[in-house]
Protein backbone atom coordinates (compact mmCIF):
# COMPACT_ATOMS: atom_id res chain seq x y z
CA UNK A 1 0.00 0.00 0.00
CA UNK A 2 1.25 3.45 -0.86
CA UNK A 3 1.13 5.93 2.00
CA UNK A 4 -1.21 8.68 0.92
CA UNK A 5 -0.77 10.78 4.05
CA UNK A 6 -2.17 9.35 7.24
CA UNK A 7 -5.13 11.71 7.35
CA UNK A 8 -6.76 9.89 4.44
CA UNK A 9 -7.20 6.77 6.56
CA UNK A 10 -10.67 7.86 7.63
CA UNK A 11 -12.26 8.45 11.02
CA UNK A 12 -13.37 4.88 11.61
CA UNK A 13 -9.87 3.46 11.45
CA UNK A 14 -8.66 6.32 13.64
CA UNK A 15 -11.42 5.62 16.12
CA UNK A 16 -10.58 1.92 16.37
CA UNK A 17 -6.88 2.77 16.62
CA UNK A 18 -7.53 5.22 19.44
CA UNK A 19 -9.62 2.63 21.29
CA UNK A 20 -6.89 0.02 20.94
CA UNK A 21 -4.08 2.39 21.92
CA UNK A 22 -5.95 3.50 25.05
CA UNK A 23 -6.50 -0.16 25.96
CA UNK A 24 -2.84 -0.97 25.41
CA UNK A 25 -1.69 2.04 27.41
CA UNK A 26 -3.89 1.35 30.42
CA UNK A 27 -3.67 -2.45 30.42
CA UNK A 28 -1.01 -2.72 33.15
CA UNK A 29 -3.28 -0.83 35.55
CA UNK A 30 -6.50 -2.62 34.77
CA UNK A 31 -7.56 -5.02 37.57
CA UNK A 32 -6.78 -8.62 36.66
CA UNK A 33 -10.40 -9.73 36.74
CA UNK A 34 -11.40 -6.99 34.26
CA UNK A 35 -8.32 -7.65 32.16
CA UNK A 36 -9.24 -11.30 31.63
CA UNK A 37 -12.72 -10.22 30.50
CA UNK A 38 -11.04 -7.77 28.12
CA UNK A 39 -8.73 -10.45 26.77
CA UNK A 40 -11.70 -12.69 26.00
CA UNK A 41 -13.37 -9.74 24.30
CA UNK A 42 -10.32 -9.16 22.12
CA UNK A 43 -10.15 -12.87 21.26
CA UNK A 44 -13.78 -12.76 20.17
CA UNK A 45 -13.18 -9.53 18.26
CA UNK A 46 -10.32 -11.20 16.40
CA UNK A 47 -12.62 -14.11 15.56
CA UNK A 48 -15.36 -11.75 14.40
CA UNK A 49 -12.95 -9.84 12.15
CA UNK A 50 -11.63 -13.11 10.77
CA UNK A 51 -15.11 -14.30 9.77
CA UNK A 52 -15.80 -10.82 8.42
CA UNK A 53 -12.92 -11.26 5.97
CA UNK A 54 -14.66 -14.10 4.19
CA UNK A 55 -18.37 -14.02 5.08
CA UNK A 56 -18.68 -10.27 5.56
CA UNK A 57 -16.76 -9.29 2.43
CA UNK A 58 -17.68 -11.99 -0.08
CA UNK A 59 -21.08 -13.07 1.24
CA UNK A 60 -19.94 -16.70 1.53
CA UNK A 61 -21.43 -17.82 4.84
CA UNK A 62 -19.02 -20.08 6.72
CA UNK A 63 -20.44 -22.12 9.59
CA UNK A 64 -17.19 -23.90 10.12
CA UNK A 65 -14.87 -21.16 11.24
CA UNK A 66 -14.48 -22.77 14.63
CA UNK A 67 -12.22 -25.29 12.85
CA UNK A 68 -9.50 -22.70 12.37
CA UNK A 69 -9.83 -21.48 15.90
CA UNK A 70 -9.56 -25.04 17.20
CA UNK A 71 -6.64 -25.87 14.91
CA UNK A 72 -4.89 -22.75 16.11
CA UNK A 73 -5.47 -23.85 19.68
CA UNK A 74 -4.20 -27.38 19.02
CA UNK A 75 -1.27 -26.03 17.02
CA UNK A 76 -0.22 -23.94 19.99
CA UNK A 77 -0.74 -26.72 22.48
CA UNK A 78 1.07 -29.27 20.36
CA UNK A 79 4.12 -27.07 19.86
CA UNK A 80 4.10 -25.00 23.04
CA UNK A 81 5.97 -21.79 22.94
CA UNK A 82 6.91 -21.90 19.29
CA UNK A 83 3.45 -20.63 18.21
CA UNK A 84 3.66 -21.89 14.67
CA UNK A 85 0.66 -20.68 12.72
CA UNK A 86 1.62 -21.67 9.23
CA UNK A 87 0.03 -25.11 9.63
CA UNK A 88 -3.27 -23.27 10.17
CA UNK A 89 -2.78 -21.24 7.01
CA UNK A 90 -2.05 -24.47 5.18
CA UNK A 91 -5.17 -26.12 6.57
CA UNK A 92 -7.20 -23.06 5.57
CA UNK A 93 -5.84 -23.18 2.03
CA UNK A 94 -6.70 -26.85 1.79
CA UNK A 95 -10.22 -26.52 3.17
CA UNK A 96 -10.85 -23.34 1.18
CA UNK A 97 -9.56 -24.92 -1.99
CA UNK A 98 -12.28 -27.55 -1.72
CA UNK A 99 -15.23 -25.74 -0.10
CA UNK A 100 -14.94 -22.52 -2.14
CA UNK A 101 -15.86 -24.49 -5.23
CA UNK A 102 -19.39 -24.44 -3.86
CA UNK A 103 -21.60 -21.41 -3.85
CA UNK A 104 -24.33 -20.12 -1.58
CA UNK A 105 -26.00 -22.61 0.70
CA UNK A 106 -23.77 -25.46 -0.55
CA UNK A 107 -20.70 -23.62 0.65
CA UNK A 108 -22.33 -23.08 4.03
CA UNK A 109 -23.18 -26.79 4.31
CA UNK A 110 -19.68 -27.82 3.22
CA UNK A 111 -18.07 -25.68 5.92
CA UNK A 112 -20.39 -27.17 8.51
CA UNK A 113 -19.51 -30.70 7.44
CA UNK A 114 -15.80 -29.91 7.59
CA UNK A 115 -16.17 -28.52 11.10
CA UNK A 116 -17.98 -31.60 12.38
CA UNK A 117 -15.62 -33.99 10.59
CA UNK A 118 -12.52 -32.19 11.86
CA UNK A 119 -13.59 -32.47 15.49
CA UNK A 120 -14.06 -36.25 15.16
CA UNK A 121 -10.72 -36.62 13.38
CA UNK A 122 -8.88 -34.71 16.09
CA UNK A 123 -10.55 -36.81 18.79
CA UNK A 124 -9.00 -39.91 17.21
CA UNK A 125 -5.43 -38.64 17.00
CA UNK A 126 -3.32 -39.93 19.91
CA UNK A 127 -0.72 -37.20 19.66
CA UNK A 128 -3.45 -34.61 20.16
CA UNK A 129 -4.45 -35.91 23.57
CA UNK A 130 -6.48 -38.88 22.38
CA UNK A 131 -9.76 -37.05 22.69
CA UNK A 132 -8.92 -35.71 26.13
CA UNK A 133 -7.18 -32.56 24.99
CA UNK A 134 -3.77 -31.30 25.98
CA UNK A 135 -3.15 -29.55 29.28
CA UNK A 136 -0.57 -26.82 29.21
CA UNK A 137 1.41 -25.65 32.19
CA UNK A 138 2.48 -22.26 31.07
CA UNK A 139 1.36 -20.12 33.94
CA UNK A 140 -0.93 -17.17 34.42
CA UNK A 141 0.32 -14.16 32.46
CA UNK A 142 -2.63 -11.92 31.61
CA UNK A 143 -0.48 -9.09 30.30
CA UNK A 144 1.31 -11.35 27.81
CA UNK A 145 -2.02 -12.74 26.70
CA UNK A 146 -3.39 -9.25 26.36
CA UNK A 147 -0.57 -7.84 24.27
CA UNK A 148 -0.39 -10.91 22.03
CA UNK A 149 -4.07 -10.81 21.10
CA UNK A 150 -3.87 -7.02 20.90
CA UNK A 151 -1.15 -7.20 18.22
CA UNK A 152 -3.03 -9.88 16.26
CA UNK A 153 -6.24 -7.85 16.33
CA UNK A 154 -4.47 -4.61 15.35
CA UNK A 155 -2.85 -6.27 12.33
CA UNK A 156 -6.18 -7.80 11.38
CA UNK A 157 -8.02 -4.46 11.52
CA UNK A 158 -5.35 -2.77 9.39
CA UNK A 159 -5.46 -5.61 6.86
CA UNK A 160 -9.26 -5.38 6.72
CA UNK A 161 -8.94 -1.68 5.98
CA UNK A 162 -6.26 -2.24 3.38
CA UNK A 163 -8.27 -4.96 1.63
CA UNK A 164 -11.50 -2.95 1.57
CA UNK A 165 -9.85 0.19 0.19
CA UNK A 166 -7.59 -1.15 -2.51
CA UNK A 167 -7.88 -3.04 -5.73
CA UNK A 168 -8.70 -6.33 -3.99
CA UNK A 169 -11.58 -4.59 -2.23
CA UNK A 170 -13.21 -3.74 -5.53
CA UNK A 171 -12.66 -7.28 -6.72
CA UNK A 172 -14.28 -8.61 -3.55
CA UNK A 173 -17.27 -6.29 -3.86
CA UNK A 174 -17.73 -7.28 -7.49
CA UNK A 175 -17.71 -10.97 -6.51
CA UNK A 176 -20.26 -10.34 -3.78
CA UNK A 177 -22.43 -8.40 -6.22
CA UNK A 178 -22.28 -10.78 -9.21
CA UNK A 179 -19.58 -13.42 -9.35
CA UNK A 180 -20.13 -14.32 -13.02
CA UNK A 181 -20.00 -10.69 -14.13
CA UNK A 182 -16.85 -10.23 -12.06
CA UNK A 183 -15.14 -13.13 -13.84
CA UNK A 184 -16.22 -11.71 -17.20
CA UNK A 185 -14.29 -8.54 -16.36
CA UNK A 186 -11.13 -10.38 -15.48
CA UNK A 187 -11.49 -10.87 -11.71
CA UNK A 188 -9.83 -14.11 -10.69
CA UNK A 189 -12.65 -14.90 -8.29
CA UNK A 190 -11.22 -18.23 -7.13
CA UNK A 191 -7.91 -16.65 -6.14
CA UNK A 192 -9.45 -13.64 -4.41
CA UNK A 193 -11.76 -15.87 -2.36
CA UNK A 194 -9.01 -18.31 -1.46
CA UNK A 195 -6.73 -15.47 -0.39
CA UNK A 196 -9.41 -14.07 1.91
CA UNK A 197 -10.33 -17.50 3.23
CA UNK A 198 -6.73 -18.35 4.07
CA UNK A 199 -6.16 -14.99 5.70
CA UNK A 200 -9.39 -15.43 7.61
CA UNK A 201 -8.36 -18.90 8.76
CA UNK A 202 -4.96 -17.64 9.83
CA UNK A 203 -6.41 -14.99 12.15
CA UNK A 204 -9.02 -17.35 13.57
CA UNK A 205 -6.11 -19.70 14.26
CA UNK A 206 -4.22 -16.91 15.98
CA UNK A 207 -7.21 -16.19 18.19
CA UNK A 208 -7.54 -19.91 18.93
CA UNK A 209 -3.89 -20.09 19.93
CA UNK A 210 -4.28 -17.30 22.44
CA UNK A 211 -7.52 -18.89 23.63
CA UNK A 212 -5.67 -22.15 24.40
CA UNK A 213 -2.98 -20.18 26.15
CA UNK A 214 -5.48 -18.38 28.40
CA UNK A 215 -7.34 -21.62 29.08
CA UNK A 216 -4.05 -23.38 29.95
CA UNK A 217 -4.76 -26.08 27.45
CA UNK A 218 -6.93 -27.20 24.65
CA UNK A 219 -9.88 -29.53 24.83
CA UNK A 220 -12.19 -31.02 22.22
CA UNK A 221 -14.75 -28.41 23.29
CA UNK A 222 -12.70 -25.98 21.23
CA UNK A 223 -14.56 -27.45 18.25
CA UNK A 224 -17.91 -26.47 19.73
CA UNK A 225 -20.04 -25.10 16.89
CA UNK A 226 -21.43 -22.43 19.19
CA UNK A 227 -18.15 -20.56 18.62
CA UNK A 228 -19.00 -20.44 14.91
CA UNK A 229 -22.48 -19.24 15.69
CA UNK A 230 -21.20 -16.56 18.02
CA UNK A 231 -18.83 -15.28 15.35
CA UNK A 232 -21.68 -15.15 12.86
CA UNK A 233 -23.92 -13.41 15.37
CA UNK A 234 -21.23 -10.80 15.95
CA UNK A 235 -20.83 -9.81 12.32
CA UNK A 236 -24.57 -9.98 11.63
CA UNK A 237 -25.33 -7.71 14.58
CA UNK A 238 -22.38 -5.37 14.00
CA UNK A 239 -22.68 -5.12 10.24
CA UNK A 240 -21.24 -7.54 7.68
CA UNK A 241 -18.31 -6.41 5.62
CA UNK A 242 -17.79 -3.19 7.59
CA UNK A 243 -14.65 -2.07 9.39
CA UNK A 244 -16.25 -1.23 12.72
CA UNK A 245 -19.07 -3.79 12.71
CA UNK A 246 -17.16 -6.83 14.01
CA UNK A 247 -15.85 -4.87 16.99
CA UNK A 248 -19.29 -3.53 17.90
CA UNK A 249 -20.77 -6.98 17.32
CA UNK A 250 -18.15 -8.60 19.54
CA UNK A 251 -18.96 -6.18 22.37
CA UNK A 252 -22.70 -6.60 21.81
CA UNK A 253 -22.53 -10.39 21.90
CA UNK A 254 -19.70 -11.08 24.32
CA UNK A 255 -20.50 -8.71 27.16
CA UNK A 256 -24.14 -9.85 27.57
CA UNK A 257 -23.20 -13.50 27.21
CA UNK A 258 -20.56 -13.02 29.88
CA UNK A 259 -23.27 -11.78 32.19
CA UNK A 260 -25.56 -14.65 31.21
CA UNK A 261 -22.74 -17.10 31.87
CA UNK A 262 -22.66 -16.04 35.49
CA UNK A 263 -26.25 -14.99 36.13
CA UNK A 264 -28.75 -16.63 33.78
CA UNK A 265 -26.73 -19.71 32.92
CA UNK A 266 -27.60 -21.27 29.58
CA UNK A 267 -29.87 -18.53 28.40
CA UNK A 268 -27.31 -16.65 26.30
CA UNK A 269 -27.74 -18.69 23.12
CA UNK A 270 -31.50 -18.39 23.24
CA UNK A 271 -31.18 -14.62 23.50
CA UNK A 272 -28.45 -14.44 20.79
CA UNK A 273 -30.57 -16.59 18.50
CA UNK A 274 -33.61 -14.37 18.93
CA UNK A 275 -31.58 -11.18 18.43
CA UNK A 276 -29.86 -12.50 15.28
CA UNK A 277 -33.19 -13.63 13.82
CA UNK A 278 -34.75 -10.24 14.50
CA UNK A 279 -31.77 -8.42 12.97
CA UNK A 280 -31.69 -10.65 9.90
CA UNK A 281 -35.41 -10.01 9.43
CA UNK A 282 -35.66 -6.31 10.10
CA UNK A 283 -32.22 -4.67 9.87
CA UNK A 284 -30.11 -7.03 7.72
CA UNK A 285 -27.37 -4.42 7.41
CA UNK A 286 -26.58 -4.72 11.11
CA UNK A 287 -25.77 -1.80 13.40
CA UNK A 288 -23.08 -0.12 11.28
CA UNK A 289 -24.83 -0.79 7.95
CA UNK A 290 -28.13 0.58 9.25
CA UNK A 291 -26.54 3.72 10.65
CA UNK A 292 -24.94 4.33 7.25
CA UNK A 293 -28.22 3.67 5.48
CA UNK A 294 -30.49 5.88 7.56
CA UNK A 295 -28.11 8.72 8.50
CA UNK A 296 -26.46 9.91 5.26
CA UNK A 297 -24.15 12.24 7.21
CA UNK A 298 -22.45 9.22 8.72
CA UNK A 299 -21.50 7.65 5.39
CA UNK A 300 -18.27 9.57 5.08
CA UNK A 301 -17.28 8.82 8.66
CA UNK A 302 -18.49 5.34 9.48
CA UNK A 303 -17.35 2.31 7.54
Amino acid sequence: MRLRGIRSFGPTLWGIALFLVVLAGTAPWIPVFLLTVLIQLLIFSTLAYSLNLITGLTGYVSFGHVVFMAFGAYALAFAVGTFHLHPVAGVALGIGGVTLRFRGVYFAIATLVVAVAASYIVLEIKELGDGQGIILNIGFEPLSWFYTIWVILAIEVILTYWITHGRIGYGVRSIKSDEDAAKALGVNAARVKLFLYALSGLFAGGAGGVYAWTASGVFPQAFDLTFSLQMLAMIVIGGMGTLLGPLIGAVAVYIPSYIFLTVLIGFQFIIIGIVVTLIALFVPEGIVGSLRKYIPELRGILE
Partner: protein
Amino acid sequence: MTRVLDVADVHKYFGGVRAVQGVSLKVQEGQVVGLIGPNGSGKTTLLNLIAGVEKPTKGAISWDGQRIDRWPAHRIVGQGIAKTHQIPKPFLTMTCRENVAVAMMFGNHAQRESSKALEEAAHMLALVGLGRKADVMSSKLTVQERKRLEFARVLGTGARIVLLDEIFAGLSPEELRDAMNLFERVQKEIGFGALVVEHVMRAVLTLSEHVIVIEEGMKIAEGSPRAVVEDPAVIEAYLGTEAVHAAP
Protein backbone atom coordinates in the same frame (compact mmCIF):
# COMPACT_ATOMS: atom_id res chain seq x y z
CA MET B 1 1.11 -7.11 -36.56
CA THR B 2 -2.65 -7.41 -36.30
CA ARG B 3 -3.69 -10.15 -33.98
CA VAL B 4 -6.39 -12.62 -34.99
CA LEU B 5 -9.06 -14.47 -33.04
CA ASP B 6 -9.33 -17.81 -34.76
CA VAL B 7 -12.24 -20.14 -34.06
CA ALA B 8 -11.62 -23.44 -35.82
CA ASP B 9 -14.28 -26.13 -36.22
CA VAL B 10 -15.74 -25.65 -32.76
CA HIS B 11 -18.43 -27.94 -31.37
CA LYS B 12 -20.45 -27.68 -28.18
CA TYR B 13 -22.84 -30.35 -27.00
CA PHE B 14 -25.07 -30.04 -23.94
CA GLY B 15 -25.95 -33.65 -23.32
CA GLY B 16 -27.83 -34.61 -26.48
CA VAL B 17 -28.30 -31.03 -27.65
CA ARG B 18 -25.80 -30.01 -30.30
CA ALA B 19 -25.72 -26.28 -29.76
CA VAL B 20 -22.70 -25.58 -31.96
CA GLN B 21 -21.62 -28.02 -34.67
CA GLY B 22 -18.36 -27.16 -36.33
CA VAL B 23 -18.29 -23.37 -36.67
CA SER B 24 -15.13 -21.64 -37.90
CA LEU B 25 -14.58 -17.90 -38.03
CA LYS B 26 -11.89 -15.27 -37.75
CA VAL B 27 -11.92 -11.78 -36.27
CA GLN B 28 -8.97 -9.47 -36.76
CA GLU B 29 -8.07 -6.68 -34.39
CA GLY B 30 -9.85 -3.59 -35.74
CA GLN B 31 -12.37 -5.60 -37.78
CA VAL B 32 -16.10 -5.71 -37.07
CA VAL B 33 -17.67 -9.08 -37.80
CA GLY B 34 -21.41 -9.64 -37.56
CA LEU B 35 -22.86 -12.93 -36.37
CA ILE B 36 -26.51 -13.48 -37.18
CA GLY B 37 -28.93 -16.36 -37.09
CA PRO B 38 -32.41 -17.27 -35.88
CA ASN B 39 -33.23 -17.69 -32.19
CA GLY B 40 -31.54 -20.71 -30.66
CA SER B 41 -29.05 -21.04 -33.50
CA GLY B 42 -26.10 -21.09 -31.08
CA LYS B 43 -24.89 -17.48 -31.29
CA THR B 44 -24.72 -16.81 -27.58
CA THR B 45 -23.20 -20.24 -26.95
CA LEU B 46 -20.48 -19.44 -29.47
CA LEU B 47 -19.69 -16.18 -27.68
CA ASN B 48 -19.60 -18.03 -24.35
CA LEU B 49 -17.13 -20.53 -25.82
CA ILE B 50 -14.81 -17.76 -27.01
CA ALA B 51 -15.07 -15.90 -23.70
CA GLY B 52 -14.26 -19.07 -21.74
CA VAL B 53 -17.60 -19.19 -19.91
CA GLU B 54 -18.18 -22.60 -21.54
CA LYS B 55 -15.56 -25.01 -22.81
CA PRO B 56 -15.89 -26.42 -26.33
CA THR B 57 -16.58 -30.14 -26.71
CA LYS B 58 -14.36 -30.23 -29.80
CA GLY B 59 -12.32 -27.80 -31.85
CA ALA B 60 -9.83 -25.03 -31.16
CA ILE B 61 -10.02 -21.36 -30.32
CA SER B 62 -6.82 -19.33 -30.56
CA TRP B 63 -5.91 -15.72 -30.11
CA ASP B 64 -2.71 -14.35 -31.55
CA GLY B 65 -1.58 -17.90 -32.33
CA GLN B 66 -2.16 -19.18 -28.78
CA ARG B 67 -4.77 -21.79 -27.81
CA ILE B 68 -7.20 -20.22 -25.31
CA ASP B 69 -10.07 -22.70 -25.33
CA ARG B 70 -9.15 -24.33 -22.01
CA TRP B 71 -8.40 -21.09 -20.20
CA PRO B 72 -10.60 -19.76 -17.41
CA ALA B 73 -12.69 -16.71 -18.34
CA HIS B 74 -10.70 -14.20 -16.32
CA ARG B 75 -7.47 -15.21 -18.03
CA ILE B 76 -8.99 -14.73 -21.47
CA VAL B 77 -10.09 -11.24 -20.41
CA GLY B 78 -6.54 -10.60 -19.27
CA GLN B 79 -5.31 -11.42 -22.75
CA GLY B 80 -7.69 -8.96 -24.39
CA ILE B 81 -11.01 -10.67 -25.21
CA ALA B 82 -14.09 -9.58 -23.29
CA LYS B 83 -17.84 -10.11 -23.62
CA THR B 84 -20.98 -8.16 -22.75
CA HIS B 85 -23.95 -9.97 -21.29
CA GLN B 86 -27.17 -10.21 -23.24
CA ILE B 87 -28.99 -9.19 -20.09
CA PRO B 88 -26.73 -6.54 -18.52
CA LYS B 89 -25.15 -7.58 -15.24
CA PRO B 90 -24.00 -4.36 -13.55
CA PHE B 91 -22.66 -4.52 -10.00
CA LEU B 92 -25.79 -3.03 -8.48
CA THR B 93 -24.08 -2.09 -5.22
CA MET B 94 -21.60 0.14 -7.01
CA THR B 95 -21.69 3.42 -8.90
CA CYS B 96 -21.17 3.43 -12.68
CA ARG B 97 -17.67 4.75 -12.13
CA GLU B 98 -16.82 1.89 -9.78
CA ASN B 99 -18.29 -0.63 -12.21
CA VAL B 100 -15.92 0.50 -14.94
CA ALA B 101 -13.02 0.86 -12.49
CA VAL B 102 -13.31 -2.85 -11.59
CA ALA B 103 -12.91 -3.66 -15.29
CA MET B 104 -9.88 -1.38 -15.52
CA MET B 105 -8.17 -2.77 -12.43
CA PHE B 106 -8.77 -6.42 -13.26
CA GLY B 107 -9.17 -6.58 -17.04
CA ASN B 108 -5.77 -6.47 -18.64
CA HIS B 109 -4.24 -5.02 -15.47
CA ALA B 110 -3.23 -1.79 -17.19
CA GLN B 111 -4.30 0.26 -14.17
CA ARG B 112 -3.88 -1.37 -10.79
CA GLU B 113 -4.15 1.78 -8.67
CA SER B 114 -7.79 2.16 -7.53
CA SER B 115 -7.75 5.98 -7.32
CA LYS B 116 -6.44 6.32 -10.88
CA ALA B 117 -8.81 3.68 -12.24
CA LEU B 118 -11.74 5.57 -10.70
CA GLU B 119 -10.54 8.73 -12.39
CA GLU B 120 -10.06 7.15 -15.80
CA ALA B 121 -13.39 5.33 -15.56
CA ALA B 122 -15.14 8.70 -15.91
CA HIS B 123 -13.53 9.21 -19.32
CA MET B 124 -14.67 5.81 -20.46
CA LEU B 125 -18.22 6.59 -19.31
CA ALA B 126 -18.15 9.90 -21.16
CA LEU B 127 -17.10 8.01 -24.28
CA VAL B 128 -20.27 5.90 -24.22
CA GLY B 129 -22.48 8.84 -23.29
CA LEU B 130 -22.83 8.08 -19.59
CA GLY B 131 -20.55 10.90 -18.42
CA ARG B 132 -23.23 12.47 -16.25
CA LYS B 133 -24.06 9.19 -14.56
CA ALA B 134 -20.55 8.46 -13.32
CA ASP B 135 -21.45 8.75 -9.65
CA VAL B 136 -24.96 7.35 -9.88
CA MET B 137 -25.57 3.87 -8.49
CA SER B 138 -25.81 1.44 -11.38
CA SER B 139 -29.09 0.11 -9.94
CA LYS B 140 -30.69 3.45 -10.88
CA LEU B 141 -29.94 3.08 -14.60
CA THR B 142 -32.53 2.28 -17.27
CA VAL B 143 -32.11 -0.89 -19.32
CA GLN B 144 -30.59 1.03 -22.22
CA GLU B 145 -28.16 2.83 -19.92
CA ARG B 146 -27.21 -0.51 -18.43
CA LYS B 147 -26.31 -1.74 -21.89
CA ARG B 148 -24.04 1.24 -22.36
CA LEU B 149 -22.47 0.58 -18.98
CA GLU B 150 -21.93 -3.01 -20.04
CA PHE B 151 -20.16 -1.72 -23.15
CA ALA B 152 -18.07 0.75 -21.14
CA ARG B 153 -16.99 -2.03 -18.79
CA VAL B 154 -15.89 -4.25 -21.65
CA LEU B 155 -13.88 -1.36 -23.07
CA GLY B 156 -12.50 -0.74 -19.59
CA THR B 157 -10.90 -4.17 -19.58
CA GLY B 158 -8.72 -2.94 -22.43
CA ALA B 159 -10.10 -5.66 -24.71
CA ARG B 160 -8.77 -5.83 -28.26
CA ILE B 161 -11.62 -8.11 -29.32
CA VAL B 162 -15.04 -7.33 -27.86
CA LEU B 163 -17.86 -9.84 -28.05
CA LEU B 164 -21.15 -7.95 -28.08
CA ASP B 165 -24.31 -9.90 -27.33
CA GLU B 166 -27.33 -8.01 -28.65
CA ILE B 167 -26.40 -4.57 -27.43
CA PHE B 168 -28.67 -2.95 -30.03
CA ALA B 169 -31.80 -4.91 -29.13
CA GLY B 170 -34.92 -3.14 -27.96
CA LEU B 171 -34.04 0.34 -29.17
CA SER B 172 -36.36 2.83 -30.88
CA PRO B 173 -35.23 3.87 -34.41
CA GLU B 174 -33.67 7.11 -33.10
CA GLU B 175 -32.00 5.36 -30.20
CA LEU B 176 -30.66 2.77 -32.61
CA ARG B 177 -29.20 5.45 -34.86
CA ASP B 178 -27.52 7.13 -31.87
CA ALA B 179 -26.21 3.84 -30.56
CA MET B 180 -24.79 2.89 -33.95
CA ASN B 181 -23.09 6.29 -34.37
CA LEU B 182 -21.65 5.91 -30.91
CA PHE B 183 -20.39 2.42 -31.65
CA GLU B 184 -18.72 3.51 -34.91
CA ARG B 185 -17.09 6.51 -33.26
CA VAL B 186 -15.74 4.52 -30.31
CA GLN B 187 -14.63 1.66 -32.54
CA LYS B 188 -12.62 4.02 -34.76
CA GLU B 189 -11.12 5.76 -31.75
CA ILE B 190 -10.03 2.62 -29.91
CA GLY B 191 -9.61 0.34 -32.91
CA PHE B 192 -10.81 -2.86 -31.24
CA GLY B 193 -12.05 -5.84 -33.19
CA ALA B 194 -15.64 -6.89 -32.56
CA LEU B 195 -17.82 -9.94 -32.98
CA VAL B 196 -21.36 -8.55 -32.95
CA VAL B 197 -24.23 -10.92 -32.28
CA GLU B 198 -27.42 -9.17 -33.26
CA HIS B 199 -31.05 -9.59 -34.21
CA VAL B 200 -31.35 -6.05 -35.51
CA MET B 201 -30.37 -6.58 -39.15
CA ARG B 202 -29.89 -2.88 -39.82
CA ALA B 203 -27.22 -2.64 -37.14
CA VAL B 204 -25.30 -5.72 -38.26
CA LEU B 205 -25.42 -4.87 -41.94
CA THR B 206 -24.35 -1.25 -41.44
CA LEU B 207 -21.59 -1.85 -38.91
CA SER B 208 -19.93 -5.08 -40.03
CA GLU B 209 -17.40 -5.56 -42.77
CA HIS B 210 -18.04 -9.27 -42.76
CA VAL B 211 -21.12 -11.24 -41.76
CA ILE B 212 -21.44 -14.85 -40.67
CA VAL B 213 -24.80 -16.59 -40.61
CA ILE B 214 -25.40 -19.65 -38.46
CA GLU B 215 -28.39 -21.89 -38.19
CA GLU B 216 -28.81 -24.83 -35.81
CA GLY B 217 -25.21 -24.47 -34.75
CA MET B 218 -23.82 -24.61 -38.27
CA LYS B 219 -22.47 -21.89 -40.50
CA ILE B 220 -24.71 -21.57 -43.56
CA ALA B 221 -23.24 -18.47 -45.19
CA GLU B 222 -20.66 -15.75 -44.85
CA GLY B 223 -19.41 -12.77 -46.80
CA SER B 224 -20.00 -9.06 -47.17
CA PRO B 225 -23.28 -7.79 -45.69
CA ARG B 226 -24.74 -7.29 -49.19
CA ALA B 227 -23.77 -10.73 -50.42
CA VAL B 228 -25.19 -12.37 -47.32
CA VAL B 229 -28.60 -10.71 -47.42
CA GLU B 230 -28.98 -11.69 -51.06
CA ASP B 231 -28.15 -15.32 -50.37
CA PRO B 232 -31.45 -17.25 -50.76
CA ALA B 233 -30.40 -19.85 -48.21
CA VAL B 234 -29.95 -17.11 -45.63
CA ILE B 235 -33.22 -15.43 -46.43
CA GLU B 236 -35.02 -18.71 -46.09
CA ALA B 237 -33.34 -19.74 -42.87
CA TYR B 238 -33.36 -16.40 -41.19
CA LEU B 239 -36.52 -14.71 -42.38
CA GLY B 240 -38.66 -17.65 -43.46
CA THR B 241 -39.57 -18.90 -46.95
CA GLU B 242 -42.10 -16.22 -47.76
CA ALA B 243 -39.40 -13.57 -47.30
CA VAL B 244 -37.44 -14.91 -50.26
CA HIS B 245 -39.82 -13.11 -52.57
CA ALA B 246 -39.91 -9.92 -50.57
CA ALA B 247 -36.11 -9.53 -50.43
CA PRO B 248 -34.43 -6.68 -52.33
